[in-house]
């Protein structure tokens, strides 16, 4: 117990929002000080970030394109957290899903003779559906080993899911420099271009964005009204009590981690078919790890994944903007870390009241 205060059991939404606003404000001030220290005018940089992110079509599209994978990896991590599980492996599951989807996309091959015909539409729709299914299965499969270890042997999923990330990364490297290497344009560390693409939604934004939003909405609905979500909450809160309630904790842990991996896998498919159009070494871009941040920001609400992913997208896009004024990409990582830290402190701070009840 700390000081004279008392940790509140339920923290009001208002307190959280206020504490987080303060935290974000402090981070902004620190970042501004850092920018000033680099010899730049923080006001100019701030205006540049705001105008080019929110004031241009490209900036807004960038936000949506960043949000899409973050929503899905965030949802993946969030789902596992409902059961008290830390899926650190969304990055690897994302890549596994991307690889499986790329396998479908590369093997299908659009037939130029059919271009524009209903047959081509059917075949590309089929490819997309197949790729999405395959990516879900691959993502789930990628988390199956850690899931089984956690569910029935008590092996910490934090370590195993993390290690699977490295396997996935090197598997992708092996694929894109070996059997799937692009021999047409000589693109480095890339598979050949996949001709089937996700249909456009608006401008450069493909329909992966509404799909990701829909996935989050479905997750929110599932967690309002399903028995499964109740069981997960119980497994996460007290496995012993879950057993007492007649819940097969191992099976729930396994299924949850599989679903979590599958969602991250779909994120990989959408990135391949919507944004990058190739399987690529740098494809995951840290989305799996940033998904952890998004899930933590969202706390217990699935719908809060949307603003959390948006905030993360704004930060990432600010990182791109900052690079044009020679602030390095790693400074953006530091900024993200600072923000997560500040928000964690803010959440904890919001949970403390100056005074409490008698013990």
């Amino acid at each position, binding site marked *: *117990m700390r000081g*004279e205060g*008392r940790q509140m*059991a*339920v923290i009001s939404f208002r307190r959280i929002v206020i504490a987080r606003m303060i935290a974000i404000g402090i981070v902004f001030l620190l970042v501004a000080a850092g920018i000033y220290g680099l010899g730049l005018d923080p006001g100019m940089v701030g205006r540049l970030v705001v105008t080019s992110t929110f004031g241009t079509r490209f900036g807004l599209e960038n936000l949506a394109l960043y949000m899409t994978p973050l929503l899905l990896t965030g949802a993946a991590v969030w789902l596992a957290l409902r059961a008290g599980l830390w899926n650190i492996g969304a990055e690897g599951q994302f890549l596994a899903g991307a690889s499986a989807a790329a396998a479908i996309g590369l093997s299908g091959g659009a037939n130029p003779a059919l271009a524009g015909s209903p047959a081509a539409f059917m075949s590309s729709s089929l490819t997309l559906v197949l790729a999405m299914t395959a990516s879900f299965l691959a993502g789930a499969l990628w988390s199956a080993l850690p899931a089984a270890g956690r569910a029935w042997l008590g092996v910490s999923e934090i370590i195993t899911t993390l290690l699977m990330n490295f396997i996935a990364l090197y598997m992708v490297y092996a694929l894109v420099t070996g059997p799937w290497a692009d021999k047409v344009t000589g693109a480095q560390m890339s598979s050949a271009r996949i001709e089937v693409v996700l249909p456009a939604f608006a401008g450069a934004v493909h329909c992966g964005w509404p799909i990701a939003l829909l996935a989050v909405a479905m997750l929110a609905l599932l967690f*309002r*009204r*399903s*028995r*499964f*979500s*109740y*069981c997960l*909450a*119980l497994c996460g*809160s*007290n496995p*012993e*009590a*879950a*057993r*007492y*309630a*007649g819940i097969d904790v191992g099976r729930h842990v396994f299924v949850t981690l599989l679903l979590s991996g599958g969602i991250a896998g779909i994120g990989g498919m959408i990135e391949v078919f919507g944004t990058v159009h190739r399987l690529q070494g740098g494809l995951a871009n840290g989305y799996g790890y940033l998904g952890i941040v998004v899930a933590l920001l969202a706390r217990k609400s699935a719908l809060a994944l949307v603003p959390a992913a948006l905030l993360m997208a704004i930060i990432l896009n600010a990182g791109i903007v900052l690079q044009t004024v020679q602030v390095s990409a790693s400074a953006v990582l530091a900024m993200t870390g600072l923000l997560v830290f500040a928000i964690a402190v803010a959440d904890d701070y919001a949970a403390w009241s100056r*005074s*409490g*009840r*008698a*013990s």
Partner: protein
Amino acid sequence: MYRALSESVSPAQPRPAGYPHGVPPLLALEGVSKYFPGVVANENVSLAFYPGEIHALLGENGAGKSTLMNIVTGLYRPDRGELVLDGYGVSFDGPDAAIAAGIGMVHQHFKLVPRFTIAENLALGRRDMRGILSRRKLVAFARREAEKYGFAFDVEARVETLSAPEQQRVEIVRVLGRGARLLILDEPTAVLGPSEVSELYAALRRFRADGGAVILISHKLEEIMALADRVTVLRRGRVVATHLAGSLSPQALVAEMIGHAPVEALPAPEPLAVDPDRETISLRDVTMRDESGRLRVHPVSCDIFRGEIFGIGGVTGNGQVALAEMLAGLRHPDTGRILVAGQDMTGRPVAAFVEMGIGYVPQDRLRQALAPALGATENAALRVFRTPPVGGRFLWNEDAATRYARLLIDEAGIALADPSRPVRGLSGGNQQRLVLARESRIASRFLVACYPGRGLDLGAMETMRSALVALRNTGRGVVLVSEDLDELLALSDRIAVMSGGQVKAILGRGEATREDIGALMSGHGSGSR
């Protein structure tokens, strides 16, 4: 600022018997008050603890014992009043200052590092054990410590492998090793069997003989009578009185504590009418092994009837819990069969037992019966979420669950405005009421209750016992696992005594004396079946 304290302590508080005048108390509280918004946790508490005495603190849950001890151990600072140590006024900046002053507390939930060995735990926080330590040095140090306080440990065993009583001993040695002169124990016998209790008593008496002071927080009157030199009763944050132990009857103490005389006798259970048509839980040559393959329950066959309270007695850890968990479907027998109302339930899932109307109150509320971080709503639905209106095959109806939770809360008589608040915020007694209300609703046929009185104050205990009797009187069967022989004798229609995983005897009401049962519990003696 030295002061002779003998005058300042209120004359209503007798000094320990035979204690010389002029020697100051080891620690005195003077007019200590502590307020939380809207709550008076302690008000004007004046108390003195002398070297060489065991001082019991008695009070219901919420009477202010914990707050007072948090002040003494430096976690809280009093809003008013002061602490006087060896005649000097002190103010503890934090727990470290209290430890340095020689005040040590053995908590109900031990503050040991489970993954560390005993030796490592003992060395933690010791100023003389800093820097780089060789394993040999560590082991030698730990052996020395254990011997000094009269305990023998395998100091290289990891704490997580120890039983609760062993962990308690490690905790005591650790606290004493840090130089405690004032030892505070919170419900120390809750985790102990009878033989371990007497060992603890002996250790505490040794400590007293060496000039140490003990504060004993306990609900158990017989324990206080047996051990304490003085007793202070707290009620609503205030000191009611301090007595020399033995100067007052247990009934009078209870009266002071709860403010009215306790229910003297339980509603006398009706004699058990023998009716072979009544539904039963029937065990047929049931055995069970634990994870390490040890036989925890030797072959047992018996029928438990609706309309009776079937007591299971024994020293803790002799297979009672394993048996109870089998009756509730949480564990499956390795051999043999379980029938409920004639239906074979062997190997069926917990949910099937719930559907058959078997409620279960586990021994550990926070670890097993509740999800402390979740709200009362979720906890109320814990065992009924599969069936309408709360749930279904796939669905979960939050509104229905909230309504159900409110119903249980009303039934249990808990004052709780918001069922979404985590139940860890409830007092132990209220948590148990919630569990009992939930399981009683499930128990259309039988209720299996494991140590339901653990950690409850007397008021809550009475409520719980009445509830069990009420269930029995409305034709439900109750299986009561208890370590409290008086409770078993008062409530049970029949008592099964277990020892070493065997049911030594099943005794009808009035068939055996306490002594007979005690002999059976210790593995001796025999009884009729």
